[in-house]
């Protein structure tokens, strides 16, 4: 669904991007109590998914790029930028491919996005450290990603139902 006013669309996207940034930051303050580095709830990704659902791929890519660049500048390192960029790009591609299909809800999109994000993380870590055994780490991370992806999909769905009325005005 296309927003009529470009200004309105820009403002909503900026709000989603700042929401994603804050959620990523808050998440980083409370790491999951698991011995799995890189495992996160991924609520920031729910904002990217929302942008995709409300507006489209172009806007979602903008929200993602803003979130990735700003969080790397503010809280991250060049390495974390690499993870977030590769993971985010894979994740958004998966979610965009599934977008607008009648048989898939935002929950399925979010699960696909989360697992692909994890795949990107593991691939970058494997490449950087030249340690092929790191690929085994994809199993626990990916399984957890199915769960956390599903949860942030539920979050995106709840937000979507409340934001839809804003769209037509």
């Amino acid at each position, binding site marked *: 669904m296309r927003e009529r006013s470009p200004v309105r669309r820009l403002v909503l996207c900026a709000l989603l991007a700042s929401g994603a940034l804050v959620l990523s930051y808050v998440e980083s303050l409370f790491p999951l109590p698991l011995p799995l580095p890189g495992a996160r709830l991924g609520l920031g990704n729910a904002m990217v998914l929302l942008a995709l659902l409300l507006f489209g791929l172009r806007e979602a890519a903008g929200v993602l790029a803003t979130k990735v660049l700003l969080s790397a500048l503010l809280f991250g390192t060049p390495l974390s930028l690499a993870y977030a960029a590769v993971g985010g790009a894979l994740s958004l591609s998966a979610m965009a491919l599934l977008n607008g299909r009648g048989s898939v809800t935002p929950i399925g999109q979010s699960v696909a996005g989360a697992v692909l994000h994890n795949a990107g993380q593991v691939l970058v870590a494997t490449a950087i450290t*030249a340690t092929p055994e790191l*690929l085994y780490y*994809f199993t626990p991370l990916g399984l957890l990603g199915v769960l956390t992806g599903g949860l942030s999909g539920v979050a995106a769905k709840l937000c979507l139902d409340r934001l839809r009325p804003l769209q037509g005005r």
Partner: protein
Amino acid sequence: MKRGDFVIIALAILLALTPLLLRPARGAAPRAVVRKDGEIAAELPLDEDAVLRLEEGGQNVLRVSGGAIRMEEADCPDGTCVRQGAIQNPGETIVCLPHRVTVTIVGNGEGTGGVDAVVQ
């Protein structure tokens, strides 16, 4: 949730499980391969207790005891390598990304190629 969601979840779980197919069989006396910046820095047999200190570009202290290896200390900002605890089975890995250090257990008979090992 619709049918497509369940298909995606099933596919995602299958995808996550694929690395298990590649996991090597357990060897008799495994050893830990320590890599720094992608280069093998040391190979430690797990049946001999030892301490390995990596100082360059950040400090990491690895300890082998009781047939397992763990990251005892590290001055990296996140400390996730220390929290990963002890590992002992082939395929298990400890990672310290800020210092680009990885520790991987390999079974006996799996080569990592000819290397210069340095053990302190």
